[in-house]
């Protein structure tokens, strides 16, 4: 029997969650609360533990220790009930490319137990929202990647999801489509009053979220509103590429207290307007490039993790995926 726990008004509650893969610690005693109807962003470099966290929340990965509740249901003890409350958009596409748009949505409705009448009405509603109504009878294979993403968002909402998990919903999409997807997400939050948890690579998308949680190496670094984060952590930064190694060494020794990072020949220094001026007059002729970066979440992120957000090289999974795309394997 399902046992619902009262969560003191949090839609999702995570308590001391730990997950290990062999010797790597993917999640290190993470605890956090997501409030109802919040737009909550998880930000972190690749391998920070975001996807592990999402997978635990959607019950396909078991945590080693700790607990998590979705709308009051424990994800380990009561996964079926937890899943009914979740709408999930995975990082990798998970549509059936041989079924039509309508059939994909209908299948989802069936496996989530949406009664026939509600199902029909919902499918229509959702297709309308993501502007795919004219594509209803087309095979999913014919859709562009942006349209597939929109369809996946529509699909996650065919049942009565109270909480939506979006794992990198806009990765690999052009700016226009990204904007569109965000407008759907925000509209849905208004209309359906759902809670949204989203992971993303794109800092600019995070600006519009209610709260941001930066994680790295399986630990929560900060959790606050974007404004508060910028106020506390953002720092104007100078990105310098010196002309020679001597100059590089010189800058490193004389401004070591301002150093925030170094990748190869690029040096990052904390700065303010007067420092930038004096630095330019001193080194202006001996550097190849200098960029002054204004406070943004990007610099918040950089100063917290010491890393930039970047895309990783293709792993085994991507390669198999590419094989399938190319191969025309007839068992697909």
């Amino acid at each position: 029997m399902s046992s619902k726990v009262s969560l003191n008004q949090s839609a999702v509650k995570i308590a001391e969650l730990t997950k290990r893969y062999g010797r790597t610690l993917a999640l290190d005693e993470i605890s956090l609360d997501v409030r109802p109807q919040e737009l909550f962003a998880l930000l972190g470099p690749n391998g920070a533990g975001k996807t592990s966290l999402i997978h635990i929340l959607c019950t396909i990965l078991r945590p080693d220790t700790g607990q998590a509740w979705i709308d009051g249901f424990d994800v380990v003890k009561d996964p079926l009930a937890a899943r009914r409350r979740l709408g999930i958009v995975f990082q990798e596409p998970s549509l059936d490319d041989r079924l039509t748009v309508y059939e994909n949505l209908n299948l989802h409705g069936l496996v989530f137990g949406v009664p026939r009448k509600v199902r029909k009405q919902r499918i229509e509603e959702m297709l309308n929202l993501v502007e795919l109504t004219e594509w209803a009878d087309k095979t999913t294979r014919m859709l562009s990647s942006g349209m597939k993403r929109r369809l996946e968002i529509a699909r996650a909402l065919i049942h009565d999801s109270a909480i939506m998990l979006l794992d990198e919903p806009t990765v690999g999409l052009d700016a226009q489509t990204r904007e569109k997807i965000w407008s759907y997400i925000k509209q849905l939050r208004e209309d359906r009053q759902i809670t949204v948890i989203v992971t993303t690579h794109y800092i600019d998308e995070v600006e519009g979220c209610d709260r941001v949680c930066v994680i790295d190496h399986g630990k929560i670094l900060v959790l606050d509103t974007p404004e508060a984060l910028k106020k506390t952590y953002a720092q104007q930064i100078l990105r310098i590429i010196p002309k020679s190694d001597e100059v590089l060494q010189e800058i490193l020794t004389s401004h070591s207290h301002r150093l925030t990072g170094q990748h190869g020949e690029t040096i990052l220094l904390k700065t303010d307007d007067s420092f930038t001026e004096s630095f330019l007059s001193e080194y202006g002729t001996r550097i190849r490039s200098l960029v002054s970066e204004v406070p943004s979440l990007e610099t918040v992120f950089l100063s917290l993790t010491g890393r930039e957000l970047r895309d990783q090289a293709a792993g085994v999974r991507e390669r198999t995926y590419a094989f399938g795309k190319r191969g025309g394997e007839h068992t697909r």
Partner: protein
Amino acid sequence: MTPLEPKTSFSQLNSRPILLQLGGLYGIWLREVKRAIRDKGQLVGGISRPILWVLILGIGLNPYFRGEVYGEVTFVVPFTYLQFIFPAVVALNIMYTSVQSAVSVIWDREFGFLREVLVSPMSRGTVLLGKVLGGATVAVVHGCLVLLLARFADVPLQWSDILKAIGLMALLAFALTSLGVVIANRIRSFEGFGVFSNAVILPLYFTSSSVFPLDPALTRAQTKVVYPEWLVNVVQFNPLTYAVDSLRGVLINYNQFDPRLGIGIMLISGGLLFTIAFLDFRKM
């Protein structure tokens, strides 16, 4: 402050767990069938395979289907080779299609469909059952395609025979699809269906007394004079031998073993393989 209730409440959903699972089972089954219908390659295979086996191999080998036992030239079994091989080709077509749809689990895993249903309120068992039943349905249809060739193979069929045959085909298809899922679950990288065809389907098929009979008129000792002992043993240990045998019983009224043995073996191995597949599936 109290959290706002969602506009559409959960009470609208099927709250009876059994109805929910049945609805999902239907959805997953329907998806399998629809995919198979849209896969032209699979359909071409399902039609060309029996034509090759029955019309080319069957007709070609027909005159040679007689045995010489102790100097006496006789037909080993009172049937033409075409008639003899016909039920086995039904089994072959079912094997290919079953294993092929089961192997699509690998693609489902890689391309996310499986993930989509694994995060649904479907239990693992329902997902697996839907998948296996879907694959088995398609396989039975492909088995029936072979029955269309019956008149070319001089196999007269009654409607009752066809119905009985469909029942046997369903048992066989269920067991083989489960076998396919068991294998697919143990495979991490996929190099193509050819591996399956050569390493699983054809060895099982050739050692199931489908293309040549082990003469039931001979004693075990005599059989071992005609055939090497290892081959006799392999044929007798191959569960498919008994499945093909019971199909023969229905289609051409020829049984080497007790027909109930075939049904029993199919039921047991189907149940066993499905259980193994289910245990694997639960870990995912």
